[in-house]
């Protein structure tokens, strides 16, 4: 094909409609996960009168999902744009560290560790992993319409955002709000979905 032919061809082709924004896709993933979670697992028993600790858990997980969505949107372009990611990450780490410090200074270690021997712990690990994997599949399909500068980083960002969205969706079922529990039971699946995505999704988002 001659280059001039290609130019003619492309100039006669209407420009593509932009795909769904990735940050918006994370919001959709949260909403879908919440609906599926409500239908399949149900809501936590005290959802009608939620304790203050649930607000803490929701804020932490939603903040994480917002940060993840922002990262995902930024890494999806050939030229990475500047963002407030580092500041947000530092503030988030301070929030989590502060809540962990508060819990360990106010509660007995046995009470904190007790939640890890409940059946909720492996269930949380599994549920967040499954929701995260499903959302990662959807976000991968969407990422194919984008052009990430660094495909490994973009693949990891897909897993991170998907698992964070899954964690938010699942959190309305899980009645345990202990900061230590949230960090471990939600943090571990987010970490391994991120790692697995980084290893497995790179080939699927090449452009």
């Amino acid at each position, binding site marked *: 094909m001659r280059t001039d032919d290609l130019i003619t*061809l492309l100039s006669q082709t209407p420009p593509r409609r932009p795909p769904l924004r990735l940050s918006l896709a994370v919001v959709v993933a949260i909403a879908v996960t919440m609906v599926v979670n409500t239908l399949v697992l149900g809501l936590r028993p005290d959802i009608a009168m939620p304790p203050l600790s649930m607000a803490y858990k929701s804020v932490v997980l939603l903040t994480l999902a917002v940060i993840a969505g922002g990262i995902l949107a930024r890494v999806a372009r050939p030229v990475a744009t500047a963002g407030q990611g580092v500041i947000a990450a530092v503030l988030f780490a301070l929030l989590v560290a502060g809540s962990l410090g508060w819990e360990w200074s106010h509660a007995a270690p046995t009470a904190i560790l007790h939640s890890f021997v409940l059946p909720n712990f492996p269930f949380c690990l599994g549920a967040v992993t499954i929701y995260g994997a499903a959302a990662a599949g959807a976000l991968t399909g969407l990422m194919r319409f984008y052009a990430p500068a660094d495909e490994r980083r973009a693949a990891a960002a897909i897993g991170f955002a998907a698992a964070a969205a899954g964690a938010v969706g699942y959190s309305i079922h899980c009645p345990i709000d202990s900061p230590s529990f949230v960090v471990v039971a939600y943090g571990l699946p987010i970490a391994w979905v991120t790692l697995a995505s980084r290893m497995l999704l790179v080939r699927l988002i090449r452009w």
Partner: protein
Amino acid sequence: MGLLLTELVPLLRRYCASQLARYGRGDWAEDMVQEIMLTVHLKLHTYDDAMPFLAWLYAVAKHKIIDALRRERMHHVPLEEAADVVDGGGEAPLAQRDLAQLLAQLKPPAGEIIQALKVEGASVKALAAQYGMSESNIKIVVHRGLRRLAEMMAKERA
């Protein structure tokens, strides 16, 4: 769009030629220009208008060149054949191809629709009526066809 692409071609030719020549692949330049133009068309929505356009363009070009070189290295690097690959002058395969031949490899009716748009200058509206599809579907078929075309060009080089 046509004006933009026409303006970009000399820039891309120079950039591709200089970058690829460093790896003994100067003969790929024209194919790379075409592949990059297809990518520019398909990924234009990823351009952030707060950033300089050329920075975006060169980032796309750099990515495609690195990708092509990486694929080539993955597929054939036997050292004894390296000299042949470089010296063979490697006539750019796609530059020689007939457009119709290339489009025929697309899943019907994508090739026909793209051909009609390009050769006959048919309108999207007319094609929609001819193929019994909505105008949106015609555009989707064309975009998918172009994306497939880009993949074919990439595979061909590998």
